[in-house]
């Protein structure tokens, strides 16, 4: 059932590209703001790059997460979806995995303009950075799907989502930025491994919370 639901999410997104395009367009717009509001000095940008990157990701993801239930809400299809004999936890997992995929694709598309516009040098090793970004995505979307589900049927869902999401993901944001600083500024692994532990703990706790609580969130 999980595969069918995941296929459904990917198929809908492949057809209208709503989530990825909204995140990408918003991300590029924010990147433009960053480029003009910072000093333009590549040295300063290099220092601030990890924080700027995660700010960009979180701002963009809030927009994409809002659209994660957009189709179901717009066409009133959510009632039909939850009327089907599907375990709600599996529904959460499908939303989570598809959300991670959409966010990762957006990051993949935005990373080159990010380095280009801010005049940043490329890091020496790529793989640890990919690992940090993926772990960060797991955490952001784990909470994001829950919050998106909570805000979906609210009157001010577009406002409510970031208001709920940003404070909840503060520990994850701190850990993501710190781990990225460690990797990007080539610090010894022992200095930033603690942050990977915080990220992993966050992912485990909130993905389990999502799996358990999604039943209560989606109940009619």
């Amino acid at each position, binding site marked *: 059932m999980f595969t069918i639901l995941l296929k459904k999410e990917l198929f809908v997104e492949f057809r209208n590209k709503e989530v990825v395009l909204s995140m990408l367009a918003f991300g590029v717009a924010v990147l433009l703001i960053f480029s003009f509001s910072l000093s333009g000095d590549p040295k300063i940008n290099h220092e601030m790059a990890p924080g700027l990157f995660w700010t960009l990701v979180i701002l963009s993801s809030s927009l994409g997460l809002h659209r994660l239930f957009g189709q179901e809400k717009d066409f009133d299809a959510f009632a039909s979806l939850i009327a089907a004999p599907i375990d709600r936890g599996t529904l959460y997992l499908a939303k989570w995995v598809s959300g991670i995929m959409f966010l990762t694709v957006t990051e993949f598309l935005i990373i080159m303009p990010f380095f280009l516009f801010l005049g940043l040098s490329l890091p020496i090793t790529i793989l640890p950075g990919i690992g940090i970004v993926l772990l960060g995505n797991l955490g952001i979307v784990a909470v994001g799907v829950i919050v998106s589900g909570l805000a979906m049927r*609210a*009157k001010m869902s577009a406002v409510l989502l970031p208001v709920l999401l940003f*404070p909840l993901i*503060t520990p994850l944001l701190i850990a993501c930025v710190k781990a990225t600083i460690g990797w990007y500024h080539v610090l010894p692994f022992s200095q930033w491994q603690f*942050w990977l532990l915080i990220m992993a703990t966050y992912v485990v706790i909130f993905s389990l919370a999502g799996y358990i609580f999604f039943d*209560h969130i989606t109940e009619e």
Partner: protein
Amino acid sequence: MSIQFQDRTANNLLVLTIILMSANLYTIFFVAPMVPEQTWAQKIFYIHVPIAWTGFLSYFIVMVAGILFLLKKDPFWDRLGLAAAEIGTLFIVLVLITGPIWATPIWGRPWVWEPRLTTTLILFLIYVGYFMLRKFGGHPERVARYAAVLGIMAFIDVPLIFYSVKFWAPQFQLHPQVEMGQQPDGIFYPFLFSMITFTILNILMLRIRVRILNFHHQIITNNV
């Protein structure tokens, strides 16, 4: 069904709280000794720490009420959660006001990104979202479920927020690391007395607020 407005337990608790609070203020200002390097600024700790305790206790009650509501579907637990969230937020706002009042003369600036203060601020922001969700979430029965989930998530986020802020900026670890058990009796007993007094105040406020919410529920369901 008629509404029983009289609540003797609440009235007795109110009298007890007034007596205890008066005695508490007298103890803080006239009995507890001055700490030489902090003088009057230290006095705020007899208020600041107990209200922080009652604030976090209230948020703990929100979590427990949330779990019980999701398990039993009894609206009482939702009303208890809402009452505890309101009272907890009131106390947390007071913590965020009294903290900088103490910090200004002692640290030389009203705000530093210290873990306890930062955790309190983030929790307050989560609860701003909680009340927005309560207000704009839609159908009351659905909102009750959403609020229960958010109350649980907010509380399980606390240790993660605390430890991430603690290690985020070690230079801001300025919060007094005091073991109250090792304090002289002149400080320890007034502090303990203040903690008990504010806990009783919290229980009283919770009881009154839950009763008001019960009345409200009875009125809107036309059971009066």
